[in-house]
């Protein structure tokens, strides 16, 4: 697909999504759309570093939580308006990204080592936020209820919809630009072969730093959104493993290193979860069993992620890639 076709598609897709609050009257459905966009944002943030940069992170909660706590702490402790907190949250998360990047890329951590170290950083932040007072420690932080748009607490879900829509669109446009720029080309080169990239003059360290900061920034925005939507944070919600897992699950299901993957992945996962709950009802855990089974089945039949499937359907090829050698057993 040509890059300008992608941009066009992006605009069309987000244009269609923008119709949601106009067409959907049920708040619960709109909520699903909102949470799907939110998951797509988290996933796209991860995708920048993991999918395009090849640096698989198990600790994206570090950025999410930082964004969330930043906006909450500024409000609760300093009375600073959450719209300012929004920017501060994104930037603080990017700064955490820069710090983690410095500690890891500088010392040549790669692959599994990198993945686990990011997780360790998220844990360190969780434990810290559990111990210091200004985050409310284990008690958590409750953002006071003052519903008004000026206060980033909308009266209706539609208000929240527009915020998450804009954030997600920004993330997707950024990734589109990555796929179409020198930075992106260098990032993907580092992903595919760092030595070869460096031999061609790519400053791998700088490129990875750029990616981790961008990635952190968008995760941080997701955190800000979460904080304002639910108004309560504790260390597990903010820095727990669940966010890190969701961040990577979404783009992997959707297709790593693809522009639309995170959106497909988010829609699929939310659809799956709604479906399994609708089918099973409320026998404890059984709907989750179904969810797990469907997940495995989906991987069995769609091994290259949903975006991979989509591009295959479009080009009408068999579901095996040429590059992987078709019926090659290797």
């Amino acid at each position, binding site marked *: 697909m040509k890059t300008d076709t992608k941009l066009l598609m992006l605009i069309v897709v987000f244009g269609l999504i923008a119709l949601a609050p106009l067409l959907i009257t049920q708040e619960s459905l709109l909520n699903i759309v909102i949470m799907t966009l939110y998951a797509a944002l988290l996933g796209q943030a991860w995708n920048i570093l993991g999918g395009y940069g090849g640096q698989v992170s198990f600790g994206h909660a570090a950025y999410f939580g930082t964004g969330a706590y930043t906006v909450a702490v500024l409000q609760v402790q300093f009375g600073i308006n959450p719209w300012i907190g929004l920017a501060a949250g994104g930037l603080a998360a990017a700064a955490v990204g820069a710090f983690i990047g410095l500690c890891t890329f500088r010392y040549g951590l790669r692959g599994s080592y990198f993945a686990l170290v990011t997780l360790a950083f998220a844990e360190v932040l969780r434990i810290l936020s559990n111990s210091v007072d200004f985050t409310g420690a284990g008690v958590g932080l409750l953002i006071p209820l003052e519903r008004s748009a000026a206060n980033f607490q909308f009266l209706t879900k539609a208000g929240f919809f527009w915020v998450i829509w804009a954030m997600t669109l920004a993330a997707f446009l950024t990734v589109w630009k990555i796929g179409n720029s020198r930075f992106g080309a260098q990032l993907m080169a580092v992903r595919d072969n760092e030595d070869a990239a460096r031999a061609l003059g790519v400053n791998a360290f700088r490129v990875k730093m750029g990616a981790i900061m961008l990635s952190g920034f968008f995760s941080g925005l997701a955190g800000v959104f979460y904080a304002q939507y639910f108004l309560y944070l504790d260390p597990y919600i903010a820095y727990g493993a669940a966010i890190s897992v969701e961040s990577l699950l979404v783009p992997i299901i959707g297709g790593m290193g693809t522009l639309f993957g995170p959106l497909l992945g988010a829609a699929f996962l939310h659809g799956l979860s709604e479906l399994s709950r609708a089918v099973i009802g409320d026998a404890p855990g059984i709907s989750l069993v179904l969810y797990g089974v469907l997940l495995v089945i989906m991987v069995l039949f769609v091994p290259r992620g949903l975006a991979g499937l989509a591009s295959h359907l479009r080009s009408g*090829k068999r579901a095996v*890639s*040429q590059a992987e*050698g*078709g*019926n090659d*057993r*290797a």
Partner: protein
Amino acid sequence: MLEVSNLRAGYGAVEVLRGIDLSIDKGEIVTLLGSNGVGKTTFSAVVSGLMQPWSGSITFEGKSIAGLTPQAIVDEGLIQVPEGRHVFPNMTVRENLELGSYRRGRANRSRNIEHVAEIFPRLRERFSQNAGTLSGGEQQMLAIGRGMMAEPHLLILDEPSIGLSPLLVEEMFSLIKQLNTDGLTILLVEQNVLQSMEIADRAFVMENGEIKLSGIPADLMDDPELQRSYLGLA
């Protein structure tokens, strides 16, 4: 010994082998020539079970082996030394050799290691070095040595001379000749046309996924077509 007829295979929807017919008799050295990308490696991969044929038959020592798993084919004594070496980089030279007799020739493992070390004294010096840190040429020796460990009946060598110094290439070709004299049947896939023709009993030339020419080297060397497109003469 090996009988291939009308073999077709490819990647995805792209057909690379479009009906290959080829045969090797016991005790022969047969060389398979062809320009880059014509499908020689694909052919080796299909014969040794790494890839499934689309159609056609492969018979080895009277038994059909088309579509068998690689390990079943190894059991039959058909061993491939792959292009690109594919040695185990995280393991020592000795361990690489030991694994060569994972399925065949295990009983004679230590004797065979000794044998390989005699052929390639360089490997002996590097027995406890990780294969990943060997030089390109050393890795090539190791790959051949590993293949020898399985006491093959038929050895397929895919571009064994790649990356070897002229002296070693020379030595390798005489080694291949030597192995053959000792009773091993060999299929040699090569770009080094001149030298492989010198030792081969018969040669096949592949083009467009088919065998274009075949015969004994002396005759083929005079073929103007071959001279032009493979020897760079005229």
